[in-house]
């Protein structure tokens, strides 16, 4: 037989065809115990499925964070509790090639076509009962020429000068001032511009008068009388507005004496051609093409890119600006979390006639009527109550959870093997002492004790230290099982002949324990480590779920589920718990399946059972 030995590559050994029928004698001779275990494991369908799925999840959370980087401080109240969607920028068919106006809202878009029809798309539910998609009948009948989208309401203008507001109207968003209503005396008002902000709207008539209405608690809705009749354009930020007057100057129109916008840069006193506002800043374009940004810049709104061509129009999103150049090019800058500042190449290849930007979306209309979009499409797995993307948190949380699990297991194995080895081999007083300690530690009520340690020590250290602390606590509390197992195995192994032989050769005792005996218990250790890994992950997540583990904002699969135990979240915001719970469940199931399969592979007797 020895002369008929075939050469195998490593790959074919691992995955090659091994259907050759061997009688039991040959099989015994050819297969080493290690290979036997491997082949046993490979033939266990459940175990292999577990391994493959686990590896997929593992790679997902290992590589994922590079694609979905986590910003710990991120939160966004406009995106809170949004279900899984990807249609926030999907134009309805009727609007394609027929766009009159588009207004991007927080999680929705609203638009009207040249025939006066209104369309709304994206996630339109504001509350249980308020849904922006329920367009009022009067709006459907009217010939709408312009639309504006606020945080939770939509304002529309028809060709007769009537204004319509729907959505959340509880705070006076629909209290259109009487001056704007068509009257018998002066006939219909000619409204030239409408905009909407946080629970308020504004309109400009052709006489240069501007009016604001809505919730004035947060927003500065009053207009200084001096400016009325001279307004050319106005721009609305979240709570404030600025006016572009007919003499080319920019002024702050409200009555608030000082805020981020009142201090208007000196170069804007004349020659301004266009103004726009983001959430917390304002921007103006001068005749010579310079763009000036002022206000509370938090996301790089002031970093205006240098361009060869002259910007002529400017549009503001929530944290970004988009400008249309003289040569038809489009540039965007500012916050790029959702890709709203990355203009696609296809936009600059075409001739752009106008751009509609708002919140996180940009719609560029080409001269032949086509609409190009860039920005936030939606959230694949929805968002949580602070507007954070669930997918990003799952990916990064998985990394934390697995790291914590793995390191705790390593600590547990280290302590367990060391103490178990000493106890098992040396016996006597050392054994007695170690096993009593193991009994005491094992007898401590695990979860309350871990809670206690985390509460006492965890509150006084930084978030990062706390994470290491959890790892150590889990490791220190869960070594007893491994210790007992190793001890029992070593007790059995140390009576065998090879140990006697090693002793006779004069090998040092410590070397016998850790070099001669330990490899024999390695396979069982592997089983225990795998199963322990799942347990540690479970414990960490339970601690985090109770609020005593890894503290938010660092995500873990456990603390993502904190606060999910009320009926509102369970029912209405199902995506907040279903996704983390299922990936975590699948992960632990796979690890346990793997552990079981390794156990079956290691212990040949178990397959007979």
């Amino acid at each position: 037989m020895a002369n008929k030995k075939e050469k195998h590559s490593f790959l074919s050994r691992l995955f090659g065809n091994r259907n050759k029928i061997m009688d039991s004698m040959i099989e015994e001779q050819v297969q080493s115990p290690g290979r036997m275990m491997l082949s046993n494991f490979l033939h266990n369908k459940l175990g292999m499925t577990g391994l493959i799925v686990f590896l997929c999840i593992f790679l997902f959370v290992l590589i994922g964070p590079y694609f979905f980087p986590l910003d710990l401080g991120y939160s966004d109240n406009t995106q809170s509790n949004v279900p899984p969607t990807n249609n926030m920028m999907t134009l309805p068919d009727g609007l394609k090639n027929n766009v009159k106006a588009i207004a991007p809202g927080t999680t929705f878009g609203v638009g009207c076509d040249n025939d006066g029809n209104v369309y709304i798309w994206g996630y339109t539910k504001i509350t249980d009962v308020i849904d922006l998609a329920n367009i009022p009948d009067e709006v459907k009948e009217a010939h709408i020429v312009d639309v504006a989208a606020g945080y939770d309401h939509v304002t529309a203008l028809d060709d007769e000068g009537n204004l319509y507001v729907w959505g959340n109207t509880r705070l006076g968003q629909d209290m259109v001032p009487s001056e704007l209503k068509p009257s018998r005396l002066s006939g219909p008002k000619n409204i030239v511009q409408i905009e909407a902000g946080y629970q308020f709207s504004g309109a400009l008539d052709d006489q240069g008068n501007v009016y604001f209405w809505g919730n004035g608690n947060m927003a500065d809705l009053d207009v200084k009388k001096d400016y009325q009749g001279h307004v050319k354009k106005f721009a609305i930020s979240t709570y404030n507005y600025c006016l572009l007057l007919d003499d080319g100057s920019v002024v702050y129109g409200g009555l608030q004496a000082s805020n981020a916008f009142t201090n208007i840069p000196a170069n804007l006193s004349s020659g301004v051609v266009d103004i726009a506002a983001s959430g917390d800043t304002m921007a103006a374009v001068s005749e010579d093409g310079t763009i000036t940004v002022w206000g509370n810049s938090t996301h790089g709104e002031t970093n205006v890119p240098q361009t060869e061509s002259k910007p002529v129009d400017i549009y503001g999103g929530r944290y970004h600006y988009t400008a249309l150049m003289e040569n038809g090019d489009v540039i965007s800058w500012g916050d790029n979390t959702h890709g709203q500042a990355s203009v696609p190449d296809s936009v600059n290849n075409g001739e752009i006639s106008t751009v509609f930007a708002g919140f996180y979306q940009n719609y560029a209309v080409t001269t032949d009527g086509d609409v190009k979009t860039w920005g936030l499409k939606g959230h694949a797995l929805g968002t949580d109550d602070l507007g954070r993307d669930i997918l990003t948190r799952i990916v990064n949380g998985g990394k934390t959870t697995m790291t914590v699990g793995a390191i705790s297991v390593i600590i547990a194995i280290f302590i367990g093997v060391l103490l178990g080895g000493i106890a098992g081999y040396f016996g006597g007083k050392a054994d007695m002492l170690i096993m009593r300690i193991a009994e005491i530690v094992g007898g401590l009520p695990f979860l309350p004790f871990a809670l206690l340690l985390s509460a006492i020590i965890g509150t006084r250290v930084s978030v990062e230290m706390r994470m290491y602390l959890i790892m150590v606590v889990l490791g220190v509390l869960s070594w007893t099982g491994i210790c007992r197992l190793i001890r029992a195995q070593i007790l059995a192994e140390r009576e065998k002949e090879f140990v006697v032989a090693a002793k006779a050769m004069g090998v040092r005792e410590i070397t016998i324990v850790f070099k001669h005996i330990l490899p024999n218990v390695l396979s069982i250790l592997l089983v225990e480590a795998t199963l322990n890994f799942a347990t540690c992950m479970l414990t960490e997540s339970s601690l985090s779920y109770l609020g005593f583990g890894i503290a938010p904002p660092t995500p873990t699969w456990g603390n993502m589920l904190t606060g999910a135990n009320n009926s509102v979240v369970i029912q209405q915001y199902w995506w907040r718990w279903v996704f983390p719970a299922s990936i975590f469940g699948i992960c632990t199931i796979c690890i346990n399946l793997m552990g079981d399969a390794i156990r079956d592979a290691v212990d040949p007797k178990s397959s007979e059972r």
Partner: protein
Amino acid sequence: MAKYVLKRIGYLVVVFFIVSFLMYSLYNLIPSDPARAQLEEQKKSLKPEVYEQMYQDLRREMGLDDPLLLRYARWIGVAPDVNGEFNGLFEGNLGYSIFFKKNVIECIAEPIQTTIFINIFATILALGITIPLGIFCAVHKGSKFDNGVQVFTIIGYSIPVYIIALVFIFLFAVVWRIFPVSGMKTPGSNYTGLRAVVDQLYYFALPLIVMTFGSLGGMTRYVRASMIDALSMDHIRTARAKGVREKVVIYSHAWRNALLPVITLIISWFLGIFSGSVIIENTFNINGMGSLYIKALNNHDYELALAMQMFYTVVSLIGALITDLSYGLVDPRVRIDK
């Protein structure tokens, strides 16, 4: 047997003192000063020297400057306190809760009943299902039913109990509206007698189902494994060869042997469920020991937390004792060995 029992009890008493000392020193790591806290209100109205004098007096009165071991002995009730009285754990003084502003013993009187009730109830339910199921699977090992149960149990013990709770709340309380989402009794109700019991059971039903369901997986697997071990023993073959009826073989010859590991498991699992009910009680807003413990930790009410921690320790020690004793009862060999 008596000697064996005494030995075990003696050992556990030693462990109790070690563990409780450990706990006490852990809680003493917390930088808190009850003397200063008590004087805080009067601080403004007093002169600094007078305040300092009162503070030092109070510290001495409270025995805060004494060595840790002495303070521990006082707390546990084996050493006289400053007034020369024994007033510690053993005398029934569990401390004073600064959050609830009453004695710890009053705080835990009601929660402890709730917790013990739901835990014992869940244990009985779980045992009633898992033991027959485990035996059946072991006897019909390899059948389709067995394989199905195997997969199901892996899922059962892999998923954390709070996820099971969320799914069950979703199904039973939100979709089908059979059970209430959380709470202990109908809000605003003032039922008495049987009506109150039924109402409470109605509210406890979902937590109990979740607890039972959460422990099915591990238990069934364990019962099955030890039963298979027992069934593969030689004496079973002998019994069958003698023509003993299959029922007798299974329930008398095999099950008696499988009982020993199962008892270990039941006890340790019973303890596990006690700590596991921390999660259940928090999820379902049940006023039990678990939620009280979390409340105590969250509000830095450490005297209460320490007392509750001792409760969990005592429960686990009693569990260990029962395990040992039942070993002795079930398996005569243990008694002789020791």
